[in-house]
């Protein structure tokens, strides 16, 4: 099991949100499962991500759904490039 930094967890959440985009957005339960983090850590991080404009929260009758913003999309693309860059050196971001 590899230790994940905060930025890795954020990218995991963004990847999970992006995966659910075709369904109109991602639900909390799905994100918790895919990002593999406890609920309190998840709320802290998603709050910061919303403040930084990486994701948006759409309130629904039953819970809320999360969507990737254009800024979040750009952040994720750039992150993937650097991830690939360091992987090419045999390293992890």
């Amino acid at each position, binding site marked *: 099991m590899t230790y994940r930094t905060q930025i890795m967890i954020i990218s995991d959440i963004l990847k999970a949100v992006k995966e659910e985009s075709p369904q109109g957005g991602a639900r909390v339960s799905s994100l918790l499962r895919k990002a593999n983090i406890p609920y309190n850590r998840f709320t802290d991080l998603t709050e910061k991500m919303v403040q930084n404009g990486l994701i948006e929260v759409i309130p629904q009758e039953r819970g809320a759904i999360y969507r990737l913003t254009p800024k979040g999309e750009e952040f994720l693309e750039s992150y993937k490039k650097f991830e*690939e860059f*360091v992987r090419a050196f045999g390293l992890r971001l």
Partner: protein
Amino acid sequence: MSSFLAIISIILFIAQLLVSLLIAIVSLTGYTSYRSRTLLYLSISFFLIALGVSAQSIYAINGSVFLQLLGAVSETAGYLILAISHVYTVRSNIMTSSLALSFALIVFNSSLVYTVVKSISLLLLLYISVETVIFAVQNRSKAALIPSTGFLLLTFSTYTNLFLNTLTFNLVLIEIAKLVGFLILAAPLTIFVLRRGHTES
């Protein structure tokens, strides 16, 4: 002939300097965005390698022993930081074997400080090469196999450099091998160039 070799040698040093600086700057850009320790290590490491290459290119002109040693120490420090980043991020279970293998392959042909420093460089490069190959095999990453070739070329040039101190045609060939090694290491930079259009779309 000697001045021709000197000019070729300086051009090769400059090319090595540019490639290592490019890798260092891209890594630093990534670090400022993502605060990743790996990118910080990669950046410091390639800045030190660039400093080492610069000192050695000036040594090729004025023959200062101090600059030769400074270049060797700086390059070794760069490889040490790169090795540390491997230890912190992807250390394989057979790390001890990697180090043992590197020790087994190292050759101390003199007790001179410069040779010892270069030998440490060789050991670190061997370790980095072995770790990169292990990472590529374990993660089935073809992309990681390419830089391991680059590291192996740098290892080869460092090894052969231990036996050559005077500017000869062979030394120029070794510097070309080292430059090719650096160019291979810079190959991942194409990720940023080739996919620029994709990001903007």
